[in-house]
């Protein structure tokens, strides 16, 4: 499946660059912020501030190749050349009581997504298939405000069955947690917990009204304090301003998550954002570079919506512009690129898949 990007053909940046052939960017480019970023981020390992990120996001299209190259150099220096591969799966789909305006799984919208539970044998089968791709992470997701006892029991059962069957790190994304639930998940060996900020604090009330930004932060902080790796991501292209995009990157950087999944809005039927236009591909690439320059050491993962926003060529450019992790295959309710397409691209780019390291 060849996927077209939301980038005009004549506007595409070069796809000839390989990691080994990346020339120094930010030197003599004529763009002061790139000169600054080269010293501050690449050399000293200090992420850009919110004001500096705004400058990056406002750079003209002509500066995009140099911006992506610099972000790529930062990734190579501070993260290495490995790419972390992950599969995600929904154990409980639809019927969520929250009103996240981008989400087709909210029970409050007239979405065609029906509520359904995945049984454990299917979950284990998917974990095995995911591991066979070379993935080291398998994230179990539920569309809930937070887990109840029934869901927690199912998660415990699922973790045990997966661990019996396959060697892969297990992550979870189950909404907002209590301290007791955080402790339980850590005790059960959950390696990483996902809970996204989604958008900037200043834009959050436009996107979610059934819970607050602070409630999200509370769960994130509890997860970190319990010793689990925090996966805390972003969804851009929801109508936020460039300033708010920079604000989000800075707020994520302040949280110091182990991983940041970067999603691009895929407008879903029936949701309040169904008529939001698809984000411009060059803006998306600038955002990738900016997030890398905000967080030089974080795992920055391609997540949902990249197929629509960036297409095949944009996927490649992002991997050469700061991204160092991918979700392989499908998402929770939509389909991704074929797993082989991403895995073949990594081989072509001489980017090895990160090997399994059990951290808990």
């Amino acid at each position, binding site marked *: *499946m060849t*996927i077209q990007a939301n980038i005009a053909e004549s506007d595409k940046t070069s796809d000839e660059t390989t990691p080994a052939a990346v020339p120094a960017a930010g030197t003599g480019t004529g763009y002061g912020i790139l000169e600054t970023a080269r010293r501050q981020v690449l050399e000293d390992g200090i992420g850009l501030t919110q004001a500096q990120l705004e400058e990056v996001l406002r750079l003209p299209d002509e500066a995009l190749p140099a911006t992506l190259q610099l972000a790529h150099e930062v990734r190579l220096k501070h993260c290495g050349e490995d790419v972390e591969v992950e*599969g*995600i*799966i*929904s154990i409980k*789909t639809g019927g969520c009581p929250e009103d996240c305006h981008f989400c087709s799984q909210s029970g409050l919208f007239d979405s*065609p*997504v*029906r509520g*359904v539970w*995945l049984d454990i044998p*299917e979950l284990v*089968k*998917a974990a095995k*298939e*995911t591991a066979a*791709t070379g*993935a080291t992470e398998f994230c179990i997701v539920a569309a809930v405000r937070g887990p109840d006892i029934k869901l927690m029991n199912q998660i415990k059962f699922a973790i045990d069955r997966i661990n019996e069957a396959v060697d892969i790190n297990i992550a979870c994304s189950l909404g907002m947690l209590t301290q007791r639930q955080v402790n339980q998940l850590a005790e059960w060996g959950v390696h990483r917990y996902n809970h996204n900020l989604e958008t900037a604090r200043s834009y959050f009330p436009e996107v979610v009204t059934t819970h607050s930004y602070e409630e999200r932060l509370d769960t994130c902080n509890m997860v970190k304090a319990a010793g689990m790796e925090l996966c805390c991501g972003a969804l851009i292209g929801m109508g936020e301003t460039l300033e708010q995009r920079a604000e989000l990157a800075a707020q994520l950087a302040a949280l110091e998550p182990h991983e940041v999944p970067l999603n691009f809005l895929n407008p879903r*039927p029936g949701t309040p954002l169904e008529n939001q236009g698809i984000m411009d591909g060059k803006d998306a690439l600038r955002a990738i570079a900016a997030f890398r320059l905000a967080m030089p050491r974080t795992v920055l993962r391609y997540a949902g919506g990249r*197929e*629509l926003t960036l297409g095949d060529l944009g996927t490649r450019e992002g991997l050469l512009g700061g991204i160092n992790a991918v979700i*392989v*295959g*499908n*998402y*929770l*309710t*939509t*389909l991704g690129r074929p*797993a082989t397409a991403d895995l073949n691209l990594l081989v072509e780019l001489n980017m090895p898949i990160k090997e399994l390291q059990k951290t808990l």
Partner: protein
Amino acid sequence: MNRVSLPNRSTTGVSSSAATAQFCGHCGEPSDGGADPTSDVHRRCGERLAMEPPRYCADCRRRMKVQVTPLGWSAECSRHGVLAP
């Protein structure tokens, strides 16, 4: 795509091609009966169905139970069975 019979359930036993589908799998509205060229109404739906599973049964318009996994998907209509890629 293959339609698989569900045990103890009535099923057409055959896949609904674009020409025979009564309803669009993406939006659930009546299909254009395989019109060539595809009608404007469902051109976008066709593009979408390359990137997401169908949500509506092409035979009866019921919303289907859809399971997406990293490497596959299935969609189940309570009356017409399971659809898979």
